[in-house]
């Protein structure tokens, strides 16, 4: 970490006075390559419970998934209602990204389709993205049950799960995506 602001705080008189004022209010030092820099420390404490209300992240191990449940059978109707206008009936053939694919797609073929079934490494990503972003005309409007149902439907039309398989915070992270191990990390260290 390189910073070039520390000299400013010590070598000019008016700024030194300001620094003193800051010291009186909230002292805080931040170590940099050029030595410590005074920082105001104005962050406001928030409880983990309050922070959780902001939190939309869903991780591959299921962390962040809410309580709820849904099946592809339930999701099919919802998909027709809220998603098909852009993604096409059964997730194909309209203006938006094709969601229906197949897990048997050969990714080493000449022109492979990088669809959900063949390419996506984690089922939890579907839940995460659908909840935060879909439908694009009303993002964040789906209930947890609805997101589970649409997620189940997308997994089903890609041949990953059965039509009646119920997706929950326990079952979704356990869904086996065929391309789970197909990714090589380039600029980050993959944990062993």
């Amino acid at each position, binding site marked *: 970490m390189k910073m070039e602001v520390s000299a400013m705080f010590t070598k000019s008189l008016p700024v030194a006075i300001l620094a003193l004022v800051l010291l009186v209010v909230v002292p805080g030092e931040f170590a940099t390559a050029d030595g410590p820099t005074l*920082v105001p420390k104005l962050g406001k404490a928030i409880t983990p419970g309050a922070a959780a209300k902001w939190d939309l992240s869903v991780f591959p191990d299921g962390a962040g998934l809410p309580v709820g449940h849904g099946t592809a059978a339930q999701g099919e109707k919802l998909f027709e209602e809220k998603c098909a206008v*852009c993604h096409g009936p059964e997730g194909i053939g309209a203006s938006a990204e094709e969601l229906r694919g197949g897990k048997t797609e050969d990714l080493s073929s000449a022109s492979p389709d990088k669809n959900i079934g063949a390419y996506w490494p984690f089922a939890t990503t579907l839940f995460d993205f659908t909840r935060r972003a879909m439908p694009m005309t009303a993002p964040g409007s789906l209930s947890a049950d609805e997101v589970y149902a649409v997620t189940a439907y997308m997994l089903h039309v890609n041949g990953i799960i059965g039509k009646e398989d119920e997706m929950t915070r326990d079952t979704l992270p356990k869904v086996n995506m065929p391309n789970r191990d197909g990714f090589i990390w380039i600029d980050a260290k993959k944990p062993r």
Partner: protein
Amino acid sequence: MSINPNHPAPLTTDELTPAANGGLLDRRIFLKRGLVFASAVMAGEIALADDKLAVVDPAAPPWMREPGQPFSTYGRPSPYEKRIIRSITANKIVAGNGASWTPLQHLEGMVTPTGLHFERHHNGVPQIDPGQHQLLIHGLVQRPLTFRMDDLTRYPMRSHLIFLECGGNSNSGWFEEAPQATVGNMHGLVSCSEWSGVPLAILLDEAGIEAKATWIVAEGADAIAMNVSLPLEKIMDDCIVAIYQNGEKLRPEHGYPLRLIAPGWEGVLNVKWLRRIQVTNRPMMARNETSKYTELMPDGKTRQFTFVIDAKSLITTPSHGQTLRGAGVYEIRGLAWSGRGKIKKVEVSADGGATWAEAALQEPVLSRCFTRFRIPWNWNGGPAVFKSRATDDTGYVQPERKVLIAERGRNGYFHYNAVVSWSVDEDGSVSHVY
């Protein structure tokens, strides 16, 4: 010797000794002699000039005979430059999902005007009230904290003058046939700005990072809550939360009021409308780091977390869509950049890569910043094929297209940085060739 730029002395035999085949001259000729172009005007500029040619006597132009316009509270480009705009490619149904491309072929120098900086939005540009915007830092920290915008502006700041490039820039280069498009429409998802704001290390230090933390998740306040994961090491090294771009508060389309800036790393990681930093011990595997912004290779394996933008260059003049007006001296101009450091060298070829000459690099040459390069060319009126090839200070050399494709195949989509070739025809037209 004094030089009259309007009547340069003829080039001497020594000066005309080429630096490489095809008419490339020593890069220092323009500096030494202050040469002017021989009819070296590009077609686009001619068209604009024609607008005002009709009636004006240049010896006594009308704008010298009446008072000019009054002051303006916020300056705008000349109306004669109204055609220099971003070109937009967006979803027909969801207008806010797409990109706008910087018209690089019309720009000079290293800084991109803020209003022409490329955009990539996934679901529109939110209009955020800065008084209502907060940044949350939570997760593996001792003290979860929120920061208001007026508080953030009191923190120590630093600036990065850097390029920003979308990982999907130049993706039509993977096509089998060379697309016939301008530099901006093919390669314009890269721009260069000064970004100023607060080092994230300071804010994370205030929150108190737990020992097991290794990643963060950054999230925007747009209508897809755009989210990506970044290694904590990069965040602590040089990332800032930018409040200013080119000296003024961010524009809405560039992340107002707060944007993560990760110098040298692909554009999607520079999360706009930043609202949340979650400190974690693993990546989230978000949609935009798994199904997108990853590169499928010929063996079926996929490159993931390809954060760094490798060295790249392209010639902006002459380039596709421009027309040279007859033989004579031209200046070949272009841009080079690398996410790994400084541009060390740019070589230019006028004979399709058979011979190369080194271009002059415009100072200052900065790490992870646009570097403008220039080299004079004496066109004999015959066909020529231009290429530029950048080398950065790590020694990395921008690859030829066939080399990149041999390594990555043609299904990677992202991170296309191969050498770009422009063919100049005898009639002066310029087209894109592989």
